């Protein structure tokens, strides 16, 4: 029983959640920051002529992208190492990297509008 419990806790399957969580945190952060800045009329405050919302979103995206790249990189590395282990382990590493890549694309897409659109209208 304890062996089964240990297997559950250390399973690479848990890593499938990392990409989704980073995406959700990024999405929530940029949405909340924009909404609050517009509601409180503080969206114009900035640094070096760049608005605070733009700065925040770009920073959040860089952080999220870095975390995702690490997740994808680790999954690819472990996937290669797992080539000799049972198929499910390699599959889970592949899926972790694939989901990470999809959400990385989503994170980048969700950031692009800040470069072209007015923030609060």
């Amino acid at each position, binding site marked *: 029983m304890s062996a089964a419990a240990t297997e*559950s806790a250390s399973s690479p399957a848990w890593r499938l959640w990392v990409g989704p969580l980073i995406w959700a945190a990024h999405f929530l952060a940029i949405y909340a920051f924009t909404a609050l800045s517009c509601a409180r009329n503080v969206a114009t405050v900035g640094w070096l002529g760049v608005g605070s919302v733009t700065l925040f979103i770009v920073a959040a995206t860089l952080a999220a992208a870095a975390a995702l790249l690490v997740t994808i990189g680790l999954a690819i590395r472990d996937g290669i190492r797992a080539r000799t282990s049972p198929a499910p382990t390699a*599959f889970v590493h592949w899926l972790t990297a*694939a989901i990470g890549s999809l*959400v990385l694309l989503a994170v980048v897409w969700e950031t692009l509008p800040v470069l072209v659109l007015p923030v609060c209208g």
Partner: protein
Amino acid sequence: MTATSPPSPTSLPSPLPRPADELARLEAAWTPPTGWKLLTAVNNTYIGIFYIATAFVFFIAAGILALLMRIQLAVPENTFLDQGTYNQMFTMHGTVMMFLFAVPVVEAIGVLLLPNMLGARDLPFPRLSAYAFWAYLIGGVVFFGSLFFGNAPDGGWFMNPPLTSYRYSPGANADWWLLGIGFIEISAIAGAIEIIVGILRTRAPGMSLDKLPIYAWAMLVFAFMIVFAFPAVILATMLLELERAFHWPFFIAELGGDALLWQHLFWFFGHPEVYIIFLPAAGMVSLIVPTMAQTPLVAYRLIVLALAGTGLLSFGLWVHHMFATGIPPLSLSFFAAASMAVTIPSGIQFFAWIATMATGRVQLKTPALFVLGFLAVFLIGGLTGVMVAVVPFDWQAHDTYFIVAHLHYVLFGGMVFPLFAAFYYWTPFLSRQQLSERLGRWAFGLIFVGFNVAFFPMHITGLAGMPRRVYTYSAGLGWDSLNLVSTVGAFLIAAGVAVFLVDVARNFRLDVTNNAGNVWRAGTLEWLPTGNYSVRSIPLITSREPLWDQPGLAADVEAGRYYLPGTATGRRETLLTSALDAKPQYLLQLPGPGWTPFFAAAGTAAFFLLLTVKLVVPALIGGVVAIVMMLWWMWGSDPGPNHAPVDIGGGITVPVYVTGPASHSWWAMVTLLLVSGMLFGSLVFSYLYLWTVSPRVWPAGGAGIPAPVYPLLAAALLALSSAAIAYASRALRTTVGTGHRGHTMVRISLLAALPLLVAALGVELYGQWQAGLRPTASSYGAVVYMLSALQGQFVLVLLIMGGYTLARSWCGLLDGQRRATFDNTMLLWHYAVAQGLVALLLVHGFPRTFG
């Protein structure tokens, strides 16, 4: 394909000949109830069929409402229906189709198919499925019945306040929606937990995650989406009902509320809901297409990615239903971008299906026709979806018939066509004979042509300016003939459905044991020879299409040559395996037929429905009945190690009882904690949202906030109660049997922990009250008291669970080994304490920091 070499016939786990009485004992354990005792059935086959039939009845009922509306709209200035009735009808059509048909039917098909497809004997919580079904049936029928009393909801299926709040909807109409649908959602969550644990833990040995049928992947994502999406709408219904019943102003602008909060919460559920309906249908298509083309599905891994990606990104789309509400343009663009991103996984699935069909030779049987219809119709819906994801276009099309066309192309195309494909495809699994190919082609032709005749013109009607939800229109606006055509189309759909019903009446003969069998030459496990016990022996899987790649599998399974060829304990049982690689872990003893799920469901339904008509005392009696029935049903469900470990064949011996993180009940409880966390998270979002919108009603400079001593005392009491439970857990670990002195410590700790939890809540409420805060005064007051109200619900549940755990301890049913009951209570306890601490931090820390 990932087939490795299958086991050779000589090395199969259970040698022949099998003992003479083995099959008879298995059949005896799984004998279904008959006659009126069918109400006590809990087996997935029965519950699944009841469930699908009920959902289909609601489909027809809501379809009839659609026909009545189409009659009204056939000609301008029609007087067939008056405005009030029409309002009720479009509200009920949408609500019933979404909540009483679409979600239940896909869940029902999962309940029916999954155990067989996974090589399990049943789902891990059969009585939970039965409870979910009966609650849904009773609740749904009563809810629909409100229409016959002119008392049905009439505020649109998404029930936007302020229209639906007490000022503009004073009658009980909206309450039917809030309480009726609110509790049917509980049934959906119960089903989702069942499906998650079922898919992750009851698969046949060898069916590792990379060999899971795509349909099971789809259902897994579907169930997680319910877990994450439904709590938001449950919270929304609670808030609106509290506003209606007790005037807590969550959505009233003058008092700091905001009607848009409802829309955020509703669509945080509502958009994933679209994919909650679509993904199971896509999963079915991913099984039907390979069978029809007689070739494995192309790009299995990418489809798994697509299912997970769709499920995930669908949570970033909710505001695209709110483009016309005045949200800042940059915020809108996040959702437009996420809407574009979700087209990628949808596209992956599409191309994979097309590639699979191109790889094999598609037999154009009825299921394949419905799949092709799905591809065409859903594609159009997807393309108009991309159009309305473009913000400026959406501003033009918003609230017009263009949206009605789009959503029907997506939902009818994405879900109803695959559903009919599934009916034709899986009937031989359930019935002695398959449905008629000739009638099937007629049904498909009528539905496909009728659908496009009905809904394609609506794109144009919408672009010509016809708004949604109008009960009539003036002649000469350019909408007349388009509407007439749509009405003709609607009746063609109805004719197609009628042909299908005739086909069912003529050819469907329910018989799982002597079913028509694998007429399509499919590759997945549900086509193995089956009985009420599912498969005779549980196969070892080495391929994604075992019936194609493992020769002789069906015969060997039926002969009992694989694992667990009979009943090891004499009871119903199923094999629990590890989540990733499906290695046998233990044998789960399952319950047989019983009355408790039925009466628990009836009691739950009575509680919610009688509350709607303000019969408070009878409602409370219903609630008590429900709780008593649930406790009664739980009493026998933690049997402890009541049987020696059993040999399941192949030299594998597994225990019949486990506790801790490996146990199925632990997994179910953790899933429930995810639901709870989402519910609480939605409330925290509501708090912060209301503060963003209305800082003026928040206390400034710390004035009006209770003194720090109150939250500090409440936090200390919470922490102490958790510590007491942790101590009880340690004390329990050492106990064996009944006479051990550790039992006393467990009981004392539990008895101490209960009042500490109640006292923490009391201190918080007292602090707020004596500081002068009232829930009716402002949205701030309402949301602060709501945080306590939610905590109060957990405290109430823990009082019951704590009392129940104590009762089991006194009765000698709890010790160091037999502790699943305690573990479940402990998990929820620690969660509730953590939630309470976060709530205290928010309520007291936030206004002090940002006020």
